[in-house]
């Protein structure tokens, strides 16, 4: 391989060495800047100069956006057609499948088997919950439900990462957030405050009722917690942060969440451990129908309610001003 070869610049060996060194790309080709051909470029240039005067101060930026926009437009066109085809295909596939499934409302369908029957027939005796759905999710399939509380927990961690602005690390943007929040939120709106005076106690009491009666009537920790959370949010909108922060600041929210989840974790670990090792468990179903019955279910419902209410409230405050 001699460099005396006059065509060495374009030979394969040179390309290969340059590619190994990393400054030549065989697929994209070499980027060479040639002087533009005047005949071809003529009209185009006038148009771009025009654009340059009218729209933008930066010639190259304009050029770039024009080219990219064309590509993007072509791509989105194709993408839309592709999207319609895929959606129609999936719809047809699933509709075809549905026509082979058991009839709607059929008592002899495969899913109405011994599992569902056992939940109904033995559920009251084994868990003490009158509401069989609650008994099922908090006793028979409690591991799922613990996972679900953790989904809520990990989502609130992610939202904290994304939206929390710290006073110590970034005082400036925290101040901007506070100012924005004061600026765009109604302050001391009389109508809102009168309505909130009436509604907030009702909502919170109803939420507590739903949580405590989760094993007796429809509802449970999730729905009750969401209702309590909405009550708190309404109170916050009517009276502002100064009043709510007296009883719901970051420390309280964190302590409540961690306390509730820790209790949940320990309580369920105990019952998993005793269950799997066939040990005697001290938890008894109690008298069905009482508030303090159904073993652990009522306490677990309270824990879930606390976690959900705190999470919903902290979502709202994080969105509004970047802090709990």
């Amino acid at each position, binding site marked *: 391989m001699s460099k005396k070869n006059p065509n060495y610049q374009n030979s394969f060996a040179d390309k290969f060495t340059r590619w190994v060194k990393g400054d030549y790309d065989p697929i994209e080709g070499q980027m060479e800047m040639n002087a533009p051909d005047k005949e071809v470029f003529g009209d185009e240039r006038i148009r771009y100069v025009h654009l340059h005067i009218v729209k933008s101060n930066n010639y190259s930026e304009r050029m770039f956006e024009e080219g990219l926009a064309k590509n993007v437009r072509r791509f989105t066109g194709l993408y839309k057609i592709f999207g319609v085809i895929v959606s129609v295909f999936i719809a047809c*596939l699933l509709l075809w499948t549905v026509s082979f499934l058991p009839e709607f409302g059929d008592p002899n369908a495969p899913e109405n088997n011994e599992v569902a029957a056992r939940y109904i027939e033995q559920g009251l005796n084994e868990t003490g919950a009158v509401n069989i759905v609650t008994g099922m999710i908090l006793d028979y399939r409690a591991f799922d439900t613990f996972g679900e509380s953790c989904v809520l927990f990990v989502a609130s961690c992610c939202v904290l990462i994304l939206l929390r602005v710290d006073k110590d690390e970034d005082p400036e943007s925290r101040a901007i957030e506070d100012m924005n929040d004061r600026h765009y939120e109604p302050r001391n709106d009389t109508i809102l405050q009168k309505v909130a005076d009436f509604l907030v106690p009702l909502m919170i009491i109803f939420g507590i009722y739903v949580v405590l009666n989760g094993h007796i009537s429809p509802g449970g920790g999730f729905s009750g917690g969401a209702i309590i959370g909405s009550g708190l949010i309404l109170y916050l909108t009517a009276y502002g942060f100064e009043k709510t922060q007296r009883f719901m600041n970051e420390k309280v929210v964190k302590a409540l969440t961690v306390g509730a989840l820790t209790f949940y974790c320990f309580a369920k670990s105990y019952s998993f451990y005793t269950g799997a090792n066939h040990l005697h468990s001290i938890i008894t179903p109690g008298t069905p129908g009482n508030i303090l019955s159904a073993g652990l279910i009522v306490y677990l419902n309270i824990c879930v309610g606390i976690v959900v209410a705190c999470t919903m409230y902290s979502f709202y405050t994080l969105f509004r001003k970047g802090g709990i």
Partner: protein
Amino acid sequence: MAFVQNFPFFCIILSMFSAIISFVMNGRIAKYIHVAMVTAVLILSLATLSFVAGTGESYTFMMGHFPAPWGNEIRIGELEALMAVFFSLIMMLSVFGGMAHIDREVQDSKKNLFYILLDLLMASLLALIYTNDLFTAYVFIEINTIAACGLIMIKKQGRTYVSALRYMIMSLVGSGLFLIGLTLLYSITGHLLMSPAKEALDQIIAVHSYQVPLMVIIILVTVGLGIKSGLYPFHTWIPDAYGYTTPSASAILSSLVSKGYIFLLIKIFYRVLGFDSIISSHMVNILFAFGVIGMIMGSVAAIKERNIRRMTAYSSVAQIGYIYMGLGLGTTAGVVAAVFHIISHGVMKSLLFLSISGLTEVSDGRSDYLSLRGAGLRNRIAGAAFTVGSLSMIGMPLLTGFISKYLFASAATTAGNKMITAWVVLAISTVLNTMYFMRTVLTLYRPVSAEVHKEYTLEKSKIERAAIIGLILLNIGLGVASQPVIKAIEAGLAMFG
């Protein structure tokens, strides 16, 4: 019941509890809790592995007071215990290997949240490995997805937000398809636990009813988990997601998160749908085709890429293609090769991502080829680690990559008409791998004049070095003494049936 049999359950609960308690701790304590937790999980999993290997049979563990079709359950066999050992080991080494970067790149007030995400990731991976219940699997898939999204956007830049958003959209479509597949499965079998569902499905297959729903279930579950693990036509989120986050997170995302979904898919194939019905539904052929295309296209995209981290990310696409090709062969030997490649790819990729961070550090923080010239001379340990990882990727004997390629090639011999295709594609892919990895290695050791780069005083983080050396040793160890691992995988797969 022996006390050892409780250990998998302790592992899951321990990692969840450490996540919960870290919420009120500061970053430093959260770090110690995380390290202690992963070490404990590693030790407990090793004990479980030795127990299961000793008894030679799997067992189920009730989560509560109610037996199989009524309550939740986890199931422990040799393969599950082996995966738990490797996942916790790789998690530990990846976190150690990027410790200094985490300290620097994550805001102080958010460090504890970062470790919470890692803890919950560990919990969800363990639950995905051990679970014997399909709906539990869905819930933990969601935890895994959200925690991975948090890891992607931990650096809080515009670009990482965009990649997190794209990742979320693709994964949510995947979990939607998986969930509707699960719903269809529930409506034709009436069970959510794996073993009763398999019995119900066997009866259904025996009387030839519900053939169309069964086929659609296979398609939906496979496509859903395929999207989430980054199978070829759905891979577009991978380079962005792996390319810009903090090095530990890249290593964990590429070597653990997507592998958890693939392991769940293998488990569902064996324990719910039945491998015979998968083969007769021709799903294996589709997986084989996409795996093969992914192997080629991923490598081609990696060759075109000039940013070394994105290049490694594209190489992950190709490696996931390998795993799906092994599944697609439709033989037990192919599945063994695929499972072995899950482990060996985890070891190789975490080594590569961690060493890349060491290399970019001595190149003004840039990761394109031109800036990386001579980086291997400036940071010798990272250079050596990258070289070992690359050689392993290419399939150098005595390293783990060689063993998995050998397993794939020998599995293909019994796969009938797929043999020629598999061999040809393995050869082409090896050549392509050699091209881009060797080019990078040559670039790394190309001397540059001293004035281009100013002198770097490397922060000598002993723990990072130890982790990288540990991963190199693991690469060599798996390459030299692969036989026990392969035997364990074979025994574990036999326990699945």
